[in-house]
């Protein structure tokens, strides 16, 4: 077990956030009136990922991987929290966001921040999100229900926070599930 841990740590140099820093604050008030606070999850390992519900490929792939990861971790996953933050608050209502995330896993948390709160958070985590509108010419013949179908170019991957609240790893979105599991398991096996 120790050997596994050590190799895990060695190989995680690729993903390490240097210098290790306390995870930037994340708070979001929900319509129910409750407030989500990242700081309240001390003692657990937290994975943050950013995306949006109208995302056809990257976000579903990311969330289904996280669901698989949780399945593979078995009992260990009790100490793992997954948080998905929308970079598209304009289209992603809280309800739409929750419905979306629940399809992948009922234990995942979805958060919606707006305006300055979102900008501040994205800046702190060095995440970019830019709208990309399709060529309107090409859509002139299509009656879209409701919305102009823009996509959002955004920073992918997994931001992993350890039990002590330190942002430890940034894992690229296309990392194989086995590697992701190894890294997250390593943090789950650390003592607080």
């Amino acid at each position, binding site marked *: 077990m120790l050997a596994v841990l050590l190799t895990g740590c060695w190989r995680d140099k690729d993903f390490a956030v240097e210098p290790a820093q306390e995870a930037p604050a994340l708070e979001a008030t929900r319509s129910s009136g409750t407030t989500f606070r990242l700081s309240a999850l001390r003692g657990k390992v937290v994975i943050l990922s950013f995306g949006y519900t109208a995302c056809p490929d990257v976000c579903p792939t990311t969330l289904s991987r996280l669901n698989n990861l949780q399945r593979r971790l078995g009992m260990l996953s009790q100490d793992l929290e997954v948080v998905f933050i929308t970079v598209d608050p304009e289209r992603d209502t809280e309800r739409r966001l929750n419905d979306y995330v629940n*399809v992948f896993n009922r234990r995942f948390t979805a958060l919606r921040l707006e305006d300055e709160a979102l900008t501040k958070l994205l800046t702190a985590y060095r995440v970019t999100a830019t709208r990309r509108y399709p060529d309107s010419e090409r859509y002139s013949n299509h009656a879209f229900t409701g919305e102009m179908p823009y996509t959002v170019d955004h920073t992918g991957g997994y931001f992993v926070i350890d039990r002590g609240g330190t942002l430890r790893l940034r894992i690229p979105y296309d990392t194989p599930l086995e590697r992701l599991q190894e890294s997250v398991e390593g943090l789950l096996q650390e003592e607080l």
Partner: protein
Amino acid sequence: MGGRGARTLGVMLLVGLPGGCRTREGAEPLRTSGASVRVERARARLTPAQVGAVYLSVVNATESADRLLSAESSSATKVELHEVVAREDVLSMVMHPEGFPIPAGGRVELVPGGKHLMLYNVRASADGIDLLLRFEKTGAVRLNVPVVAADEDMR
């Protein structure tokens, strides 16, 4: 590409139907003389946001290059050819209105995180979705694409 569960494999196994039945699950070999352009392992993932992606492989066993030009589906208002491109860690969707080339004797893979077909305003159905692919040389190919559960890893 490991990590494929038995369930996914089950979905991807092509069901060879007895004669008389034209559409196979997710694959439609073209009835050309001998060598052909084949579509394999087609599967779709839809989300509650009514967008979706179709992944598949196109195998070109012929001696001339072909190109997937466009796709349409009666289950979606629009289907586009997209590719996820990563610049450092920022992921963007690039459209390919010019299509996906399929080299002679080669193949093109549409996979999660890579090239894929994006479906807009999808109406999901338990029977899968129908898809019409238009190839430059091969012409039109119609297939039925099984829908994979959203929480399944599709690699």
